[in-house]
């Protein structure tokens, strides 16, 4: 289980880019960590690495629930979905989002707060745990579950 440390937001984004190359081509990645742990920041790097999206254009999906990022002009590249279940409280609310449909796609699906609904997440997945340390440092640990 590789564990990384980043000292700044820019380093977290750079780590995301690196992970974009190392993560499986498709599948579900849970981003796990408290408010302010750096989940959306890491997602910025992953979207940059996978879909060539400017990190400044990757914002929080809390209100909108699902954001989709694709390489512009390339309809054959697989998209990145960035999902945030923060404001949903009950499994039946999540169930109606149609996540299974996204899980079937040839896409990388990043989910924030998905660990609160373990029964709705696929067994085969990657978990990335983020923790804020002192002075803006972050500890980022990656586990693959099969």
């Amino acid at each position, binding site marked *: 289980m590789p564990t990384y440390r980043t000292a700044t937001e820019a380093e977290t984004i750079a780590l995301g880019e690196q992970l974009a190359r190392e993560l499986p081509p498709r599948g579900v990645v849970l981003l796990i960590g*408290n*408010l*302010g742990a750096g989940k*959306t*920041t890491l997602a910025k790097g992953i979207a940059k690495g996978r879909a060539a999206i400017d*990190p*400044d254009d*990757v*914002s*929080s999906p*809390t*209100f*909108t*629930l*699902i*954001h*989709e990022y694709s390489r512009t002009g390339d309809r054959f590249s697989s998209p990145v979905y960035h999902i945030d279940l*923060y*404001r*949903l*409280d*009950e499994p*039946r*609310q999540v169930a*109606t*989002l149609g996540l299974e449909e996204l899980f079937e796609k040839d896409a990388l699906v990043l989910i924030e707060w998905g660990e609160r609904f373990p029964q709705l997440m696929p067994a085969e997945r990657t978990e990335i745990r983020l923790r*804020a340390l002192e002075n803006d440092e972050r500890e980022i640990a990656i586990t693959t579950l099969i």
Partner: protein
Amino acid sequence: MRILGIESSCDETAASVVEDGERVLSSIVASQMTTHGKYGGVVPELASREHLRAIVPVVREALAQSATRLEDLSAIAVTVGPGLVGSLLVGLTYAKSLSFARSIPLIAINHIEGHIHAVVLEAKRAGTPVQYPALALVVSGGHTHLFEVREGFHYRLLGKTRDDAAGEAFDKVAKLLGYPYPGGPVIDRLAPHGDPSAVRFTFAKMKGNALDFSFSGLKTAVLRWVEAHGMADEIAARRALQRAFPEAAIEQWLAASPPRTLDLLASFQHAVIHELLTRAAACAQEIDAQTLIVSGGVACNSGLRAAAQAARLPYPVLFPTPGLSTDNAAMIAAAAFPKLYRRDFAELDLTAQANLTLA
């Protein structure tokens, strides 16, 4: 000329009839706030189901209140995005069906452009039309954008949030402190009881586009402050209050808020307002704006309105009346008039666009 506007992009099912781009003959909003309040946010499944239940009576009421028959309509305007697809589809499908059945032209409207037109309409109505170029700050739960608006409604995006929207920061701070959803109104009403200079929150200078916003750091700073000040008991007490009294009055929230917490809320709100106004003013200066438009749900914030007046900016700062600040359909109908005049109609294969951008 009359346009029927239909809006269902998020929380509200709304319909409105607007005449000549300036007279709101009716504006009906079926708020789902009570349904969503229980769940701490907009819930997609509930949202589309509630929209389905509300759409027919809401449109009927908008037509009846304005004494408008379908044959009086020059067009039907509908929100196509951005928003939740399931919610958008309800309004869109209804509008398309009505357009097809009665051969009334259909006009597709961007929700964010609607927010800008809420102010354009009211300014026109008041006999003091918006002067261009204008700067529009659209600020809500899902949006924090700065647009240049040129004559003829040409838009240029000048700045946006890179992480959390301003309204989202209000909601998240309220939730972490045990206050109800939506967070904006309750924080706005409690903030005047605290000292806005008690806690100093700072914003990092933006790299890249200096006009972009970032509210994630502020949210994290509030969280760290709460963790460092042993507030778990009072937060638990407020969550219990929420469960016991889902409709608790502001006096109850005030009684459940120690002075230190009120200071925190006041300081947080002050920081958000200061950030919004500072960047908007810098932006307005850059484009030599003749008017500053502030619209979207956060435009209801009384602290923001007061600070904008107190800033004595060298151009008028226009807010919509509260009814037109939050989501409504009058703004959608208003935004459709320029398109009606240039016969910019939509085809019936129009689809909902969850990620639609304005510029």
